[in-house]
């Protein structure tokens, strides 16, 4: 590839942002900052989605993750009053070990998947797959059963959260 295209630049920028903010999530002392960095990461990922023609998914992603899940995190952190550096710092070697393990994991994974570079497109790209109607069709035909069953999942999660979350009577 001789020229660096716009798309590639965008890919680079988004990737950089995603990775940087992910690193910051991990290394921020304050949980609230972690949440915020994570939201940044999510936005960067949403950007990738758009690059990949998954527009609908990008939207949903932002709504669900940034809008719902991360708010929930933030809410809990606030409620539990964890927005300061309460985390105990164990011996440095544990942290070093964790970093090394995680790092090796990362490197190994990257290395393991490097061989896949040669995989090329097998069919002409269809830009429309990310559109709502396409997704809807698939979801309500092929994936009907999982769709229905995820309701069970939600129900269970809901009831469970309530069960655990509410105060005991005695």
């Amino acid at each position, binding site marked *: 590839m001789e020229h660096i295209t716009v798309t590639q630049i965008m890919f680079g920028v988004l990737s950089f942002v995603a990775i940087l903010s992910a690193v910051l999530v991990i290394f921020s002392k304050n949980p609230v900052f972690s949440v915020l960095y994570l939201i940044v990461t999510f936005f960067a990922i949403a950007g990738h989605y758009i690059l990949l023609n998954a527009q609908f998914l990008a939207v949903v992603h932002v709504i669900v993750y940034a809008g719902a899940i991360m708010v929930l995190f933030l809410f809990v952190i606030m409620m539990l009053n964890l927005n300061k550096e309460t985390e105990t710092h164990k011996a440095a070697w*544990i942290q070093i*070990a*964790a970093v090394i*393990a*995680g790092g090796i*994991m990362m490197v*190994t*994974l990257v*290395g*393991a998947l490097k061989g896949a570079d040669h995989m090329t497109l097998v069919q002409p790209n269809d830009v429309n797959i990310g559109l709502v109607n396409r997704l809807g069709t698939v979801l309500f035909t092929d994936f009907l059963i999982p769709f229905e069953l995820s309701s069970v999942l939600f129900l269970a999660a809901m009831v469970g959260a309530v069960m655990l979350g509410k105060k005991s009577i005695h």
Partner: protein
Amino acid sequence: MIQLAWLIPILPLIGFLIIAFAGKKLSNSLVSIIGCGSILAAFAMTLGIFFQLHGSTQTVKLLEWFSVGRMHIDFSFLIDPLSVLFMLVITGIGFLIHVYSTGYMKGDEKYDRFFAYLNLFVFFMLLLVMGSNYIVMFVGWEGVGLCSYLLIGFWFKNTEYNNAAKKAFIVNRIGDLGFLLGMILIYITCNSLNFDTVFSNVHANASNKEVYNLIGILLFIGACGKSAQIPLYTWLPDAMAGPTPVSALIHAATMVTAGVYMIARSSVIFVNAPIASEVVALVGVLTAVFAATIGLFQNDIKKVLAYSTVSQLGYMFLGLGVGAFTGGVFHVMTHAFFKALLFLGAGSVIHAMSGEQDIRKMGGLKKSLPITHLTFLIATIAISGIPPFSGFFSKDEILAHVYEHDGTGKIYWILGIIGSIMTAFYMFRLYFLTFHGSFRGTSDQKHHLHESPKSMTMPLVILAVLAAIGGIVGIPNVNQHLLHDFLKPAFESASAWIDDAPKHFDMDEARLMIIAVLAASAAIYVAWYVYKKNNMVPKNTETDLPKFQKIIYHKYYVDEFYNAVIRKPLDWLSDFGYKFVELKFVDAFVNGVGTAVKWTGSVVRYAQSGNIGFYMFAMTIAVIIMLLVKLF
């Protein structure tokens, strides 16, 4: 009549069963009647057979025993001159000793038990000599061992007696193992254990010397055990712990000669086993001399007789070893007469002395015990080899053959003569110390001195007659050597290889005879000179003894040697093995596996630290390892 021969062993067995099961309820006299009667009946039947036999060989089958592979073992009996001769000795002398026992054991609380055992012994002994195959012989062989065990330890409250009994049984078992292995080798070689088949087989394949040598040696190990030869003789002197009639019957007249019988029976094998025969002769002559030396300085009346028995058995084996089967068997017979007589006489003395057995405490019993004295003297002369008493003839026949034996014969002969000199010496020493001189016991004992009852003296007299004249069946240089002719069928096949015939009386043999007699007489003279003329009495304290005498007095410390070399190490080894190898090693290893599991577990469980961070760390590491190992 001969077909009823199976009754002969059965009779004592019946006697045993009756006494054993009903003995408590029977009166002592009834027990005696059953005990003696069954033996007498057996003796009578044996006599009947003896007269009907006419040199024939017959097999009497009682019942099938077992049959495995090529092995077909019956309870069947071989009636031939050899077995009949032994049967006569066993039942005849057995009967006499039974009668004697009625007097000797009078008043013993286990009177019935004693007779039961004796009858059982006779049963097994008859089985031993009558069996028509090695297995039945072995049955008798082990059976008499059992009876010997029971009778040596008859007075079971005494630990020493028990030890002696145990020792007898175990030492015998060592020999039995040899016998058993020899028997198995016979089976493997000849595919049978029946005498007739085995012998005809050996006859047909005589060249197989190596195997026969091995068989011979194995069998001889068995004989060594039973017949108290070096190195397995030590049990016999200890066996004197049993009641004296037992010593007479089992440990002098019959059981100990089982080894002789076995080798005589297997003569066909031994004549084809030159090395084995040489071993038999060598061990025999060594035992004869060795035991005689020990006999020289013993002070226990029965011990002297015991060593004398060992020594005499040595002569028998010497005879067998050089091929004088008839001579050996002849000596068995005469020995049975005079040695039984000696023991019974000794028993009579002990009886009179209220159980005292130490000859240093006796002396001058001639007057109080006239019959005993006379009969004892006859037996002493007989054993010393003075003509015309029985011992002379049998011993002479053996020595004559020994002299002619190729190679080592002369040496054996000289040793034999030395042995017989010593025999004459210690026997007369015993005789003089016991019956002559002044009484050295306590006054209490002196007061009690009495001649034994009729039931005891009668057998003495009968045996004395036999001991005196028993030799006539084998007088050499008569046209007919009675015994040899009688036994001829039994040794016929063996004689194909070896000349067992009596020597014709010639100048050579006469010279040998004269030398032997003179030597014995000289020994008797010395004994007379020392113990009668000078009234010397062996010292009570050991310390005064000269060194070599002390060693002999202690029987060359052979018992101590065995103790130190075999028994102690055995005990130590088993104890060590148990405490260290078994508990500290084998078992500890097994337990160690369990401990190791638990120890590992107690270490591994710390991986389960409870810290979820560590858990996930471990999971990650695992994934990394998987990826690294499988993908790179």
